[in-house]
Protein backbone atom coordinates (compact mmCIF):
# COMPACT_ATOMS: atom_id res chain seq x y z
CA UNK A 1 0.00 0.00 0.00
CA UNK A 2 2.74 2.35 1.01
CA UNK A 3 4.60 1.44 -2.15
CA UNK A 4 1.53 2.23 -4.20
CA UNK A 5 1.25 5.68 -2.67
CA UNK A 6 4.91 6.33 -3.37
CA UNK A 7 4.49 5.15 -6.93
CA UNK A 8 1.50 7.40 -7.34
CA UNK A 9 3.43 10.35 -5.94
CA UNK A 10 6.31 9.60 -8.24
CA UNK A 11 3.98 9.46 -11.25
CA UNK A 12 2.31 12.71 -10.24
CA UNK A 13 5.63 14.38 -9.68
CA UNK A 14 6.99 13.21 -13.03
CA UNK A 15 5.44 15.91 -15.23
CA UNK A 16 6.75 18.58 -12.90
CA UNK A 17 10.20 17.07 -13.08
CA UNK A 18 9.99 17.22 -16.86
CA UNK A 19 8.41 20.62 -16.96
CA UNK A 20 10.23 23.03 -19.16
CA UNK A 21 10.96 26.62 -18.53
CA UNK A 22 11.00 28.26 -21.93
CA UNK A 23 13.91 30.63 -22.18
CA UNK A 24 15.32 30.58 -25.69
CA UNK A 25 13.58 32.11 -28.70
CA UNK A 26 13.83 30.32 -32.04
CA UNK A 27 14.24 33.22 -34.48
CA UNK A 28 13.35 31.29 -37.63
CA UNK A 29 9.97 30.25 -36.23
CA UNK A 30 9.24 33.61 -34.66
CA UNK A 31 7.80 36.69 -36.32
CA UNK A 32 6.67 40.21 -35.52
CA UNK A 33 4.33 41.73 -38.09
CA UNK A 34 2.04 44.72 -38.28
CA UNK A 35 -0.76 46.01 -40.44
CA UNK A 36 -2.12 49.50 -40.92
CA UNK A 37 -4.41 51.30 -43.34
CA UNK A 38 -3.18 53.79 -45.85
CA UNK A 39 -5.93 55.62 -47.80
CA UNK A 40 -8.26 52.82 -46.72
CA UNK A 41 -5.90 50.18 -48.07
CA UNK A 42 -4.47 47.56 -45.68
CA UNK A 43 -0.66 47.44 -45.78
CA UNK A 44 1.37 44.70 -44.13
CA UNK A 45 4.83 45.03 -42.66
CA UNK A 46 7.21 43.20 -40.37
CA UNK A 47 10.46 43.33 -38.44
CA UNK A 48 13.07 40.76 -39.37
CA UNK A 49 15.43 41.09 -36.39
CA UNK A 50 14.50 41.09 -32.75
CA UNK A 51 15.97 39.62 -29.59
CA UNK A 52 14.15 38.31 -26.56
CA UNK A 53 15.01 37.54 -23.01
CA UNK A 54 12.31 35.40 -21.56
CA UNK A 55 11.38 32.89 -18.92
CA UNK A 56 8.05 31.10 -18.95
CA UNK A 57 7.28 28.16 -16.72
CA UNK A 58 3.81 26.80 -17.56
CA UNK A 59 3.45 25.71 -13.94
CA UNK A 60 4.05 29.26 -12.72
CA UNK A 61 2.90 31.62 -15.48
CA UNK A 62 2.59 34.56 -13.08
CA UNK A 63 6.34 34.45 -12.59
CA UNK A 64 6.99 34.72 -16.32
CA UNK A 65 8.91 37.63 -17.72
CA UNK A 66 9.81 38.84 -21.17
CA UNK A 67 11.90 41.51 -22.75
CA UNK A 68 11.79 42.04 -26.49
CA UNK A 69 14.11 44.32 -28.36
CA UNK A 70 13.34 45.09 -32.00
CA UNK A 71 15.96 46.34 -34.43
CA UNK A 72 14.03 49.04 -36.31
CA UNK A 73 16.49 48.90 -39.21
CA UNK A 74 15.10 45.45 -40.02
CA UNK A 75 11.71 46.89 -40.97
CA UNK A 76 9.73 45.90 -44.00
CA UNK A 77 7.14 48.68 -44.14
CA UNK A 78 5.54 47.44 -47.35
CA UNK A 79 7.87 49.08 -49.90
CA UNK A 80 11.51 50.14 -50.03
CA UNK A 81 10.35 53.75 -50.24
CA UNK A 82 8.42 53.35 -46.98
CA UNK A 83 11.35 51.47 -45.37
CA UNK A 84 13.60 54.46 -46.03
CA UNK A 85 10.97 56.98 -44.96
CA UNK A 86 10.37 55.16 -41.65
CA UNK A 87 13.96 55.85 -40.53
CA UNK A 88 13.46 59.61 -40.66
CA UNK A 89 12.83 62.06 -37.84
CA UNK A 90 9.07 62.22 -38.46
CA UNK A 91 8.79 58.45 -38.02
CA UNK A 92 11.13 56.35 -35.85
CA UNK A 93 14.05 58.82 -35.85
CA UNK A 94 16.18 55.72 -36.06
CA UNK A 95 19.60 57.31 -35.72
CA UNK A 96 18.59 58.45 -32.20
CA UNK A 97 16.21 55.57 -31.32
CA UNK A 98 17.42 52.49 -33.20
CA UNK A 99 15.36 50.01 -31.18
CA UNK A 100 11.88 49.43 -29.86
CA UNK A 101 11.64 47.58 -26.56
CA UNK A 102 8.95 45.86 -24.60
CA UNK A 103 9.58 44.90 -20.97
CA UNK A 104 6.98 42.89 -19.10
CA UNK A 105 5.98 43.84 -15.58
CA UNK A 106 3.19 41.41 -14.83
CA UNK A 107 1.62 38.29 -16.31
CA UNK A 108 -1.96 37.35 -15.54
CA UNK A 109 -3.35 33.92 -16.34
CA UNK A 110 -6.78 34.07 -17.99
CA UNK A 111 -7.28 30.29 -18.24
CA UNK A 112 -7.19 27.99 -21.27
CA UNK A 113 -3.54 28.84 -21.89
CA UNK A 114 -4.37 32.48 -22.35
CA UNK A 115 -2.46 35.20 -20.59
CA UNK A 116 -2.32 38.92 -20.31
CA UNK A 117 1.10 40.41 -20.58
CA UNK A 118 1.34 43.83 -18.99
CA UNK A 119 4.38 45.94 -19.47
CA UNK A 120 6.00 48.92 -21.06
CA UNK A 121 6.49 49.44 -24.77
CA UNK A 122 9.10 52.08 -25.57
CA UNK A 123 9.22 53.54 -29.05
CA UNK A 124 11.07 56.69 -30.04
CA UNK A 125 12.02 57.22 -26.39
CA UNK A 126 8.39 57.24 -25.27
CA UNK A 127 7.44 54.55 -22.73
CA UNK A 128 3.76 53.57 -22.75
CA UNK A 129 1.90 50.95 -20.72
CA UNK A 130 0.46 48.15 -22.81
CA UNK A 131 -1.75 45.14 -22.12
CA UNK A 132 -1.01 42.37 -24.59
CA UNK A 133 -3.12 39.21 -24.78
CA UNK A 134 -1.00 36.13 -25.46
CA UNK A 135 -2.01 32.56 -26.10
CA UNK A 136 0.38 29.76 -25.30
CA UNK A 137 0.56 26.53 -27.30
CA UNK A 138 2.74 23.85 -25.69
CA UNK A 139 4.63 21.54 -27.99
CA UNK A 140 7.01 18.64 -27.50
CA UNK A 141 10.15 20.71 -27.06
CA UNK A 142 8.97 23.99 -28.42
CA UNK A 143 6.19 26.24 -27.27
CA UNK A 144 4.65 29.05 -29.28
CA UNK A 145 3.30 32.29 -27.92
CA UNK A 146 0.91 34.17 -30.18
CA UNK A 147 -0.28 37.64 -29.51
CA UNK A 148 -2.05 40.49 -31.21
CA UNK A 149 -2.83 44.02 -30.11
CA UNK A 150 -3.54 47.45 -31.49
CA UNK A 151 -1.31 50.41 -30.77
CA UNK A 152 -1.89 54.02 -31.69
CA UNK A 153 1.16 55.30 -33.54
CA UNK A 154 0.57 58.90 -32.46
CA UNK A 155 0.86 57.87 -28.78
CA UNK A 156 4.53 57.32 -29.61
CA UNK A 157 4.97 60.22 -32.02
CA UNK A 158 5.38 57.80 -34.91
CA UNK A 159 4.51 59.84 -37.99
CA UNK A 160 4.69 63.49 -36.95
CA UNK A 161 4.17 66.70 -38.87
CA UNK A 162 2.54 66.13 -42.23
CA UNK A 163 2.19 62.42 -41.38
CA UNK A 164 0.05 63.11 -38.30
CA UNK A 165 -2.98 63.21 -40.62
CA UNK A 166 -4.71 59.93 -39.77
CA UNK A 167 -7.00 60.18 -42.80
CA UNK A 168 -4.01 59.23 -44.95
CA UNK A 169 -2.19 56.82 -42.65
CA UNK A 170 -4.43 55.42 -39.89
CA UNK A 171 -3.48 55.92 -36.25
CA UNK A 172 -4.25 52.30 -35.38
CA UNK A 173 -1.56 49.73 -36.08
CA UNK A 174 -2.40 46.08 -35.58
CA UNK A 175 0.64 44.21 -34.27
CA UNK A 176 0.78 40.42 -34.51
CA UNK A 177 3.59 38.29 -33.20
CA UNK A 178 4.56 34.69 -32.74
CA UNK A 179 7.44 33.76 -30.49
CA UNK A 180 8.59 30.15 -30.62
CA UNK A 181 10.82 29.10 -27.74
CA UNK A 182 12.62 26.10 -26.34
CA UNK A 183 13.62 25.58 -22.79
CA UNK A 184 15.67 23.52 -20.47
Amino acid sequence: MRLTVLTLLAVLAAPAAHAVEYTTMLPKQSSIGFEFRQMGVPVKGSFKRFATEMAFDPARPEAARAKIEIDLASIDAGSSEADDESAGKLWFNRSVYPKATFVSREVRALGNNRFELRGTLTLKGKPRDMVIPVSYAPGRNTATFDGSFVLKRLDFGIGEGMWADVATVANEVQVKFRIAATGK
Partner: protein
Amino acid sequence: MSTVTRYTTPAIVLHWLMALLIFAAFPLGVYMHELPLSPDKLKLYSYHKWIGVSVFLLVAIRLGWRLTHTPPALPGDIAAWQRRASAVTHGLLYLLMIAIPLSGWLMSSAKGFQTVWFGVLPLPDLIEKNRELGDLLAGVHKALNFTLLGLVILHVGAALKHHFIERRPFLQRMGLGRKERT
Protein backbone atom coordinates in the same frame (compact mmCIF):
# COMPACT_ATOMS: atom_id res chain seq x y z
CA MET B 1 -35.13 61.88 -95.44
CA SER B 2 -31.99 62.90 -93.60
CA THR B 3 -29.40 60.73 -91.93
CA VAL B 4 -27.65 61.90 -88.77
CA THR B 5 -23.94 61.09 -89.15
CA ARG B 6 -23.39 61.14 -85.44
CA TYR B 7 -22.67 58.55 -82.79
CA THR B 8 -25.50 57.73 -80.39
CA THR B 9 -25.71 59.89 -77.28
CA PRO B 10 -24.53 57.15 -74.88
CA ALA B 11 -21.50 56.54 -77.10
CA ILE B 12 -20.70 60.26 -77.16
CA VAL B 13 -21.09 60.59 -73.37
CA LEU B 14 -18.84 57.56 -72.79
CA HIS B 15 -16.24 58.87 -75.26
CA TRP B 16 -15.91 62.29 -73.60
CA LEU B 17 -16.17 61.01 -70.05
CA MET B 18 -13.37 58.54 -70.68
CA ALA B 19 -11.34 61.18 -72.53
CA LEU B 20 -11.65 63.42 -69.48
CA LEU B 21 -10.60 60.65 -67.06
CA ILE B 22 -7.68 59.55 -69.23
CA PHE B 23 -6.50 63.15 -69.71
CA ALA B 24 -6.52 63.51 -65.91
CA ALA B 25 -4.94 60.16 -65.05
CA PHE B 26 -2.04 60.37 -67.50
CA PRO B 27 -0.33 63.58 -66.27
CA LEU B 28 -1.21 62.62 -62.70
CA GLY B 29 0.65 59.34 -63.20
CA VAL B 30 3.69 61.08 -64.67
CA TYR B 31 3.73 63.71 -61.91
CA MET B 32 3.05 61.58 -58.83
CA HIS B 33 5.67 59.04 -59.79
CA GLU B 34 8.49 61.54 -59.26
CA LEU B 35 7.29 62.90 -55.91
CA PRO B 36 9.11 62.11 -52.66
CA LEU B 37 6.97 60.07 -50.28
CA SER B 38 4.38 62.25 -48.52
CA PRO B 39 0.69 62.05 -47.56
CA ASP B 40 -0.08 64.01 -50.74
CA LYS B 41 1.73 61.42 -52.82
CA LEU B 42 -0.32 58.64 -51.22
CA LYS B 43 -3.50 60.60 -51.96
CA LEU B 44 -2.54 61.21 -55.59
CA TYR B 45 -1.73 57.52 -56.07
CA SER B 46 -5.14 56.63 -54.69
CA TYR B 47 -6.91 59.15 -56.93
CA HIS B 48 -4.98 57.85 -59.95
CA LYS B 49 -6.03 54.28 -59.11
CA TRP B 50 -9.65 55.30 -58.56
CA ILE B 51 -9.70 56.98 -61.98
CA GLY B 52 -8.09 53.89 -63.51
CA VAL B 53 -10.72 51.55 -62.06
CA SER B 54 -13.43 53.93 -63.31
CA VAL B 55 -11.92 53.82 -66.82
CA PHE B 56 -11.83 50.02 -66.62
CA LEU B 57 -15.54 49.84 -65.72
CA LEU B 58 -16.54 52.43 -68.32
CA VAL B 59 -14.64 50.68 -71.11
CA ALA B 60 -16.54 47.48 -70.33
CA ILE B 61 -19.85 49.34 -70.76
CA ARG B 62 -18.48 51.06 -73.85
CA LEU B 63 -17.38 47.79 -75.43
CA GLY B 64 -20.85 46.40 -74.82
CA TRP B 65 -22.33 49.43 -76.55
CA ARG B 66 -19.86 49.28 -79.43
CA LEU B 67 -20.50 45.58 -80.08
CA THR B 68 -24.26 46.09 -80.27
CA HIS B 69 -24.27 49.33 -82.30
CA THR B 70 -22.83 50.22 -85.67
CA PRO B 71 -20.90 53.49 -85.66
CA PRO B 72 -21.88 56.05 -88.29
CA ALA B 73 -20.16 55.30 -91.61
CA LEU B 74 -17.18 57.38 -92.66
CA PRO B 75 -17.76 59.68 -95.67
CA GLY B 76 -17.54 57.65 -98.89
CA ASP B 77 -14.53 59.48 -100.31
CA ILE B 78 -12.15 58.73 -97.41
CA ALA B 79 -9.20 56.77 -98.77
CA ALA B 80 -9.13 53.02 -98.18
CA TRP B 81 -5.79 53.16 -96.30
CA GLN B 82 -7.23 55.79 -94.00
CA ARG B 83 -10.24 53.57 -93.29
CA ARG B 84 -7.90 50.72 -92.41
CA ALA B 85 -5.71 52.99 -90.29
CA SER B 86 -8.83 54.26 -88.51
CA ALA B 87 -10.06 50.72 -87.78
CA VAL B 88 -6.64 49.64 -86.47
CA THR B 89 -6.24 52.78 -84.32
CA HIS B 90 -9.69 52.41 -82.80
CA GLY B 91 -9.03 48.71 -82.10
CA LEU B 92 -5.74 49.53 -80.39
CA LEU B 93 -7.32 52.33 -78.38
CA TYR B 94 -9.92 49.90 -77.04
CA LEU B 95 -7.21 47.35 -76.31
CA LEU B 96 -5.16 49.90 -74.36
CA MET B 97 -8.17 51.21 -72.45
CA ILE B 98 -8.49 47.65 -71.13
CA ALA B 99 -4.79 46.76 -70.82
CA ILE B 100 -3.65 49.95 -69.06
CA PRO B 101 -5.97 49.81 -66.03
CA LEU B 102 -5.43 46.05 -65.88
CA SER B 103 -1.64 46.46 -65.81
CA GLY B 104 -1.99 49.13 -63.12
CA TRP B 105 -4.20 46.89 -61.00
CA LEU B 106 -1.78 43.95 -61.33
CA MET B 107 1.23 46.19 -60.64
CA SER B 108 -0.44 47.48 -57.50
CA SER B 109 -1.04 43.92 -56.26
CA ALA B 110 2.52 42.88 -57.09
CA LYS B 111 3.84 45.88 -55.16
CA GLY B 112 1.75 44.82 -52.17
CA PHE B 113 -0.86 47.57 -52.28
CA GLN B 114 -4.37 46.40 -52.86
CA THR B 115 -6.53 48.63 -55.06
CA VAL B 116 -9.56 49.87 -53.14
CA TRP B 117 -11.91 51.86 -55.37
CA PHE B 118 -12.72 55.20 -53.68
CA GLY B 119 -11.23 53.69 -50.51
CA VAL B 120 -14.38 51.61 -50.19
CA LEU B 121 -14.57 48.79 -52.72
CA PRO B 122 -11.55 46.47 -52.64
CA LEU B 123 -10.53 44.80 -55.88
CA PRO B 124 -9.14 41.30 -55.38
CA ASP B 125 -5.39 40.88 -55.65
CA LEU B 126 -5.04 38.61 -58.68
CA ILE B 127 -1.33 38.11 -58.06
CA GLU B 128 0.76 37.90 -54.90
CA LYS B 129 3.23 40.48 -53.69
CA ASN B 130 6.45 40.20 -55.69
CA ARG B 131 8.79 43.18 -55.97
CA GLU B 132 10.48 42.09 -59.22
CA LEU B 133 7.14 41.45 -60.91
CA GLY B 134 5.91 44.79 -59.57
CA ASP B 135 8.83 46.62 -61.18
CA LEU B 136 8.31 44.72 -64.43
CA LEU B 137 4.61 45.62 -64.49
CA ALA B 138 5.47 49.26 -63.78
CA GLY B 139 7.55 49.21 -66.96
CA VAL B 140 4.69 47.58 -68.87
CA HIS B 141 2.19 50.15 -67.53
CA LYS B 142 4.47 52.99 -68.59
CA ALA B 143 5.15 51.57 -72.07
CA LEU B 144 1.44 50.99 -72.68
CA ASN B 145 0.68 54.54 -71.59
CA PHE B 146 3.19 56.12 -73.92
CA THR B 147 1.82 53.94 -76.74
CA LEU B 148 -1.61 55.31 -75.83
CA LEU B 149 -0.24 58.85 -75.91
CA GLY B 150 1.03 58.27 -79.46
CA LEU B 151 -2.28 56.79 -80.60
CA VAL B 152 -4.30 59.60 -79.00
CA ILE B 153 -2.18 62.17 -80.81
CA LEU B 154 -2.84 60.28 -84.07
CA HIS B 155 -6.57 59.97 -83.26
CA VAL B 156 -7.04 63.66 -82.38
CA GLY B 157 -4.76 64.77 -85.22
CA ALA B 158 -6.73 62.75 -87.79
CA ALA B 159 -10.08 64.08 -86.52
CA LEU B 160 -8.81 67.68 -86.62
CA LYS B 161 -7.30 67.20 -90.08
CA HIS B 162 -10.57 65.82 -91.48
CA HIS B 163 -12.53 68.62 -89.83
CA PHE B 164 -10.41 71.70 -90.38
CA ILE B 165 -8.17 70.93 -93.33
CA GLU B 166 -10.50 68.76 -95.39
CA ARG B 167 -13.47 70.78 -94.08
CA ARG B 168 -15.64 67.78 -93.36
CA PRO B 169 -18.07 67.95 -90.39
CA PHE B 170 -15.99 65.44 -88.48
CA LEU B 171 -16.19 66.76 -84.94
CA GLN B 172 -20.00 66.68 -85.15
CA ARG B 173 -19.73 62.89 -85.24
CA MET B 174 -18.67 63.04 -81.59
CA GLY B 175 -21.28 65.61 -80.64
CA LEU B 176 -19.24 68.81 -81.07
CA GLY B 177 -21.12 71.63 -82.73
CA ARG B 178 -24.49 71.44 -84.42
CA LYS B 179 -25.92 68.15 -85.58
CA GLU B 180 -24.87 67.70 -89.17
CA ARG B 181 -27.39 66.21 -91.55
CA THR B 182 -26.63 64.98 -95.02
